[in-house]
């Protein structure tokens, strides 16, 4: 069964084509690991999946429905972790998380936050101000955020940055648990995370030889239809 699919995705940032003709499929319990050089477009793809960035071309579906048609529903089902931690230096860890709990309409805010902090092993830091956190503790606070409220899809951009070995293993456990509950996880990382059988999606394969794109579409500076002139064969990506 597949619930989350994307087809023919092309992404342009600034004047730069990042990837083209990318496709993916994922079902409940699946994990996709994004790989690629710096600048290959891992973050861009995750942002496209989250709906932060509109792809130049192609669509993304959740259970057969284009996510662009009902962004609110898509947002309600996903949790996104970006490069940045979004931890306010003047608020305590607890206060930092409270906003996100309230925005998701959690009823029992207190116990939900405590549960999340406990899962990440930073319950003892609940009343510590953000400014005094080490980078790893900050990252864990950000990770605690994705545990708050129900979700079906996790989009994690290099979640292990700044984590020590132990916390990395803990994170892998959380991901496995989420998958066990039927969640879908898509994550990018440079180091290996101990996840059982993730699908691999290598962004480097979808890189566009700029050269040919530029040569192929001399007039189409603002291409409407995507770079039709590319000769790269249609990649299939991962499939369930």
């Amino acid at each position, binding site marked *: 069964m597949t619930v989350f699919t994307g087809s023919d995705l092309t992404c342009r940032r600034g004047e730069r084509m990042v990837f083209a003709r990318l496709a993916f499929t994922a079902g409940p319990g699946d994990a996709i690991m994004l790989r690629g050089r710096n600048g290959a477009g891992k973050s861009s793809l995750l942002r496209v999946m989250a709906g932060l960035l509109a792809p130049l071309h192609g669509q993304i579906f959740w259970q057969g429905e284009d996510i662009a048609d009902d962004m609110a529903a898509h947002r309600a089902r996903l949790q996104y972790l970006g490069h940045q931690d979004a931890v306010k230096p003047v608020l305590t860890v607890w206060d930092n998380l409270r906003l996100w709990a309230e925005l998701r309409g959690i009823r029992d805010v207190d116990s939900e936050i405590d549960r999340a902090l406990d899962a990440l092993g930073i319950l003892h830091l609940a009343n510590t101000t953000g400014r005094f956190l080490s980078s790893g503790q900050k990252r864990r606070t950000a990770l605690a955020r994705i545990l708050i409220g129900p979700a079906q899809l996790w989009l994690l951009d290099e979640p292990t940055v700044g984590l020590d070995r132990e916390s990395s293993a803990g994170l892998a456990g959380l991901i496995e648990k989420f998958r066990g509950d039927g969640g879908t996880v898509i994550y990018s990382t440079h180091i290996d995370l101990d996840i059982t059988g993730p699908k691999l999606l290598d962004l480097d394969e979808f890189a566009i*030889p700029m*050269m*040919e794109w530029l*040569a192929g579409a001399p007039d189409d500076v603002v291409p409407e239809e995507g770079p039709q002139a590319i000769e790269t064969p249609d990649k299939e990506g991962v499939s369930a």
Partner: protein
Amino acid sequence: MSDYFMMEGYGLYIWSSYAITAVAMVFLLVTSLRGLGQSRIELDQLETLLKSRRPRRSKSRDARP
């Protein structure tokens, strides 16, 4: 004739408003045209470079796994 240009003593106001308008419009036209010309020249250079590079590049791309 010079009476005409004097415009009853208001010549300075009238002619300077016409002159300023003309200068501004010509200036904008010239800078726009020059910008277009420059972008064209630069684009042509890059475009020819692109054509000349193309075969060599795709070869080296094939060489990589």
